[in-house]
């Protein structure tokens, strides 16, 4: 196994914090990684040596084919979730799916423009991770960020408004689809360039450590950074893995590996497509998990998040997932093999959870239908709200460029530009 080769990596000296050094090898075996959670070891597929030829096959070695089997085996054991948790997870995933479907409709009706990237099929990753967080924990995403924002708690009406470009949007209409921010819910964006958000997430995790060690506060806030397989070939990814592991920052790097970066297959662009292996190279555990199964994701997420909360440092989690739609609404999606799409369609995370919940008698079909109806209404209401909201006035143009508008400088008349009455009308010369 790969981890034995890395067991000899020396841990970096910790900065002024009393931490015991851990050997790298110990962190890699799944049972110790999971800590005390009593789970069958087979639940997580750990890397068996895969021959180079196998990597080139069209589908990655399926790590989840045991989903249904595992669950049947566990019927005598404790279930992974309670009823309440099950309903929360179901509601969140259904919200994500329904919202994105509505986005597509609205886009084709000319209500939103530009680049819109939908999350259909990947809901298990967002729900599995974000539903474990507290409000103070931070989430950083990419341009495929609608569902991350929704899972974190940003109201659907605010996200829809933002997409319509209205002032009531979460960013006053100034950000758009790719820039969802919420100070209240600690969603730190929404970034258009891939890899751009990872350092921001690292910085948020740094603040958490700073609060603990400089302010001496009891701070265990965690940051999650979501990004895709394409990003894992980008410099900022590697630079941040290094810094996060070096300083043991409370961050989890979540790779949403959907195998495609627009039209570039992950296998065609990456020398070693197994992204989770890049974690141990930097001194942090790397875990691969089936991203179409929300329960598996949730179990891994629990461990990764509590590792970070305990101050043990970062984790790299690779979620094998798939997007049912194209890269964006402008993508004709002609390159992907229909057989591949069909294969993943059978592994729809929402259908899988529904099946689990019903088979294990956690909830009835009727209860789930009620949730779906509630969400459908919420989405309809969000669209109505967005439709009726006003578009930004001209006066909004110059606001928010600077936190301190004196930054626009001093005009020829000696007054600050922001004091010009035309400034608030958005027509001042700046």
């Amino acid at each position: 196994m790969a981890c034995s080769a890395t067991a000899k990596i020396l841990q970096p000296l910790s900065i002024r914090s009393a931490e015991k050094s851990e050997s790298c090898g110990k962190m890699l075996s799944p049972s110790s990684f999971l800590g005390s959670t009593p789970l069958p070891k087979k639940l997580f597929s750990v890397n068996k040596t895969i021959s180079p030829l196998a990597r080139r096959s069209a589908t990655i070695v399926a790590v989840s084919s045991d989903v249904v089997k595992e669950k049947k085996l566990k019927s005598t054991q404790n279930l992974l979730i309670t009823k309440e948790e099950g309903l929360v997870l179901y509601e969140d995933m259904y919200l994500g799916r329904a919202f994105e479907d509505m986005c597509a409709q609205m886009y084709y009706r000319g209500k939103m423009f530009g680049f819109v990237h939908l999350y259909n099929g990947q809901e298990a990753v967002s729900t599995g991770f974000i539903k474990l967080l507290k409000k103070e924990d931070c989430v950083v995403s990419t341009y495929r960020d609608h569902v991350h924002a929704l899972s974190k708690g940003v109201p659907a009406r605010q996200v829809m408004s933002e997409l319509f470009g209205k002032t009531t949007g979460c960013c006053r209409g100034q950000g758009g689809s790719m820039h969802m921010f919420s100070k209240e819910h600690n969603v730190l964006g929404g970034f258009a360039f891939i890899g751009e958000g990872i350092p921001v997430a690292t910085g948020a995790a740094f603040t958490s450590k700073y609060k603990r060690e400089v302010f001496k506060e009891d701070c265990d806030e965690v940051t999650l950074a979501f990004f895709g397989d394409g990003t894992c070939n980008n410099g900022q990814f590697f630079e941040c893995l290094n810094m996060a592991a070096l300083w043991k920052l409370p961050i989890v790097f979540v790779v949403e590996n959907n195998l495609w970066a627009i039209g570039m297959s992950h296998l065609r662009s990456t020398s070693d497509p197994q992204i989770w292996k890049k974690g141990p190279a930097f001194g942090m555990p790397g875990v691969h998990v089936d991203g179409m199964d929300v329960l598996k994701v949730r179990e891994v997420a629990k461990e990764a998040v509590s590792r970070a909360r305990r101050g043990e440092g970062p984790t790299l989690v690779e979620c094998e997932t798939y997007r049912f739609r194209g890269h964006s609404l402008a993508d004709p999606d002609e390159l992907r093999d229909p057989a591949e799409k069909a294969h993943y369609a059978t592994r729809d995370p929402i259908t899988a959870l529904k099946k689990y919940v019903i088979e294990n008698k956690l909830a009835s079909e009727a209860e789930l239908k009620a949730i779906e109806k509630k969400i459908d209404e919420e989405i309809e209401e969000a669209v109505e709200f967005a439709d009726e909201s006003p578009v930004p006035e001209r006066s909004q143009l110059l606001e928010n460029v600077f936190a301190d508008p004196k930054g626009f400088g001093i005009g020829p008349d000696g007054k600050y530009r922001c004091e010009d009455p035309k400034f608030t009308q958005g027509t001042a010369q700046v």
Partner: protein
Amino acid sequence: MAAMLQSLGVTSASVTSNKFTAFSINSLPVIRSESRTVSVAINGTRKAGKVTTKAVAAQAENPTSAASKPGHELLLFEALREGLEEEMDRDPRVCVFGEDVGHYGGSYKVTKGLADKYGDLRVLDTPIAENSFTGMAVGAAMTGLRPIVEGMNMGFLLLAFNQISDNCGMLHYTSGGQFTIPTVIRGPGGVGRQLGAEHSQRLESYFQSIPGIQMVACSTPYNAKGLMKAAIRSENPVVLFEHVLLYNLKERIPDEEYVLSLEEAEMVRPGEHVTILTYSRMRYHVMQAAKTLVNKGYDPEVIDIRSLKPFDLYTIGNSVKKTHRVLIVEECMRTGGIGASLTASINENFHDYLDAPIVCLSSQDVPTPYAGTLEEWTVVQPAQIVTAVEQLCKQ
């Protein structure tokens, strides 16, 4: 938190008592320019008593008795450090990220001793990953800290352009005003002594179009400390340009705390015949040329614009209205530099007051050569400034 912003102008005592040797500035009487009252709400209230309204008690005569002189003498890099240390004492959220800022003390000693005092987390030695640690500073700023990013050389920050442009500059806007990015990005730039092309870059021209950032350039220990403090206290992202050759300038600065305005220019030498606009190291070439010009009978008005973005059009405009002739002397490249923007701005706003076209002396559009003679010819020298003024005044 008190946000005390005052504008202080420095004027020379008189032309005759000139002690403008190349690298030392004697104490000069400090006169406060008319204070600006801004009706825009600023965070915080005035903290009574802590900061005096006049930086130095007015001293009109005898700058020669050293013993009774108020203030303390230090070098420019020490002034930067003093400003940084005062702000770090004042606000525990202020921290520094950069390569070799901690244990090494900074490659130009600006952060010397600070890691011992504040610890490894507040003065963070980063790996060599400019884009990422600048982005880290943005993330830290969004979540409540006030980081200062040091580029070991300004040129290295080209690697951080993604984060500086997209995140520092734009994030406040794209988040609809929800997140502020109170970062300071600073470092030495400019042409040094045969440092080669890549270590001699002037990034002010590349950054000037980024919306949402402010840019200032310091040139004396006095304004270095004042601008450093102002930049740290500002809620906007500020890029502070220092110059490699100016770190050892010595000056006597006030003991009392003072903060300068980020948006104002500095009147270096009032005059009547021509307005010379400059910043950073070229200020000294201009003052050297000014000596020659005065001997030849000219009376140049020299303004250190200090604020590279936005321009202080009030100070500049008043000067243009007085002299009607403008010469810009900068170290930036000819194409798309600060001078180019300033020329356009003055033409737009003060065209009626000009008696002659604006002359802009910039560095050649050439990668800075290593050879000393070639390097000298790429930047503007005092002799060229004298010639330019003479020609300008003939028209």
